[in-house]
């Protein structure tokens, strides 16, 4: 079977959409829940999370240059405990996928199709994600490149038009409540969205230059941070404290843009862009999960797992998070430590196990 490979440029694009997909919906509301005037200070934490992911990727490509994260678990902890680690990893990726799938159904039903059932929306989303994952990462990454010229045209338009409504006074007083709200506002961006970059480790065998993965993560993290920073500055600058009462601040920001009777209702363009990026993000998560299952079941291909796990992911999204509050609670209060434990704690545990196994083997050899 021919190996599917993607270039550095394609990987960086995938990683940017991985953060921007739901980050542009969730990060502004999560940050402004804690602080409004100092919201912009919390955004660079996304870059710090990206650096953390890049550090983990660096250790991975140094020790296991041709393996996925799940393959590395098997190499570190052996077949039995390694399988347990893989099951944990798959379950975490599955839960992250359920959150994103739920965000997808929520955004569609809230923003554009309020009379359509969430199940119908989920079925359409599921069909797209399953098909793209079935086609494979190479074709997906190539198709993803097509989004860039569109984004280059649309993004400056969406940024420049609300700029006329932006008021600098909304950012004063600086440090109105000290550093603590800024720190609390940084947690989700740093430990949920920043650590999501580490999903790229699962695609190491599909990279043309895996040794450059850490630097690619840093590049993607810096671009995503700049984009989210612009979005947060614009939403706070236009809405001020009102931003706390908006479910999708960026959507409202785009909606307020009106120039005469000629340019208005740009939220349609924004909606299309968000849906494209969420589908892209879901596909990356789904591919990571399926390749993990492939390593667990030791099959030659992952495609047999695409349909059942994809459907389970969307159904899980509807079942686990019955409403926005439950989903927001999971992202804000469970997500940070859950992902920190999985992305940093579990590999450290695996490395420790590898050391212990190495010493035990050496002792047994000496004893023999």
């Amino acid at each position, binding site marked *: 079977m021919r190996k599917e490979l993607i270039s550095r440029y394609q990987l960086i694009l995938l990683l940017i959409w991985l953060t921007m997909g739901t980050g542009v919906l969730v990060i502004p509301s999560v940050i402004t829940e804690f602080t409004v005037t100092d919201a912009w200070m919390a955004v660079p934490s996304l870059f710090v999370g990206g650096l953390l992911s890049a550090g983990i990727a660096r250790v991975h490509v140094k020790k296991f240059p041709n393996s996925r994260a799940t393959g590395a678990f098997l190499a570190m902890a052996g077949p039995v405990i390694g399988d347990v680690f893989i099951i944990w990893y798959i379950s975490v990726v599955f*839960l992250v996928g359920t959150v994103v799938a739920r965000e997808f159904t929520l955004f569609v039903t809230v923003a554009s199709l309020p009379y359509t059932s969430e199940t119908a929306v989920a079925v359409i989303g599921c069909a797209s994600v399953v098909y793209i994952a079935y086609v494979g990462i190479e074709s997906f990454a190539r198709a993803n490149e097509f989004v860039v010229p569109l984004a280059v045209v649309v993004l400056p338009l969406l940024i420049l038009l609300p700029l006329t409504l932006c008021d600098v006074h909304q950012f004063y007083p600086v440090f109105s409540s000290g550093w*603590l709200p800024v*720190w*609390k506002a940084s*947690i989700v961006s740093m*430990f949920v969205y920043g650590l999501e970059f580490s999903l790229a480790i699962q695609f190491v065998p599909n990279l043309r230059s895996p040794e450059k993965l850490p630097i690619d993560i840093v590049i993607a993290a810096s671009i995503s941070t700049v984009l989210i920073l612009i979005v947060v500055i614009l939403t706070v600058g236009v809405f001020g404290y009102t931003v706390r009462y908006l479910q999708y601040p960026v959507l409202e920001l785009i909606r307020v843009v009106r120039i005469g009777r000629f340019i208005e209702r740009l939220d349609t363009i924004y909606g299309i862009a968000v849906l494209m990026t969420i589908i892209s993000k879901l596909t990356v998560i789904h591919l990571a999960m399926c390749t993990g*299952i492939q390593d*667990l*079941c*030791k*099959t*030659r*291909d992952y495609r*047999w*797992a695409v*349909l*059942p*796990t994809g*459907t*389970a992911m969307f*159904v*899980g999204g*509807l*079942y*686990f998070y019955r409403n926005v509050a439950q989903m927001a*609670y*999971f992202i*804000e*209060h*469970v*997500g*940070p*430590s*859950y992902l*920190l*434990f999985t992305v940093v704690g579990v590999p450290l545990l695996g490395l420790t196990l590898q050391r212990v196994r190495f010493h035990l083997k050496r002792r047994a050899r000496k004893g023999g």
Partner: protein
Amino acid sequence: MSFILTLSILDCRLDRRGEGEDYVVKRPAWGPTLVWLVCVCFIVIAYLALLFQWWPDFHPLYPLELVFGTATKWLFGL
């Protein structure tokens, strides 16, 4: 669903043709079958529970929320 399941198992079997006995020993068919079964069971139970509101107070992620929610509060003060 059973049709898809049968196809999936068949797909795994076809996948192995011409690979030799060694390949069969290393890659048992129970993995994909189990994944399919778990997913189908999860989809049926979760969706029916959602549709008919079985155990409306049952919260499947409660253990995770308890453990990692406490950890997040303890580590980050959220």
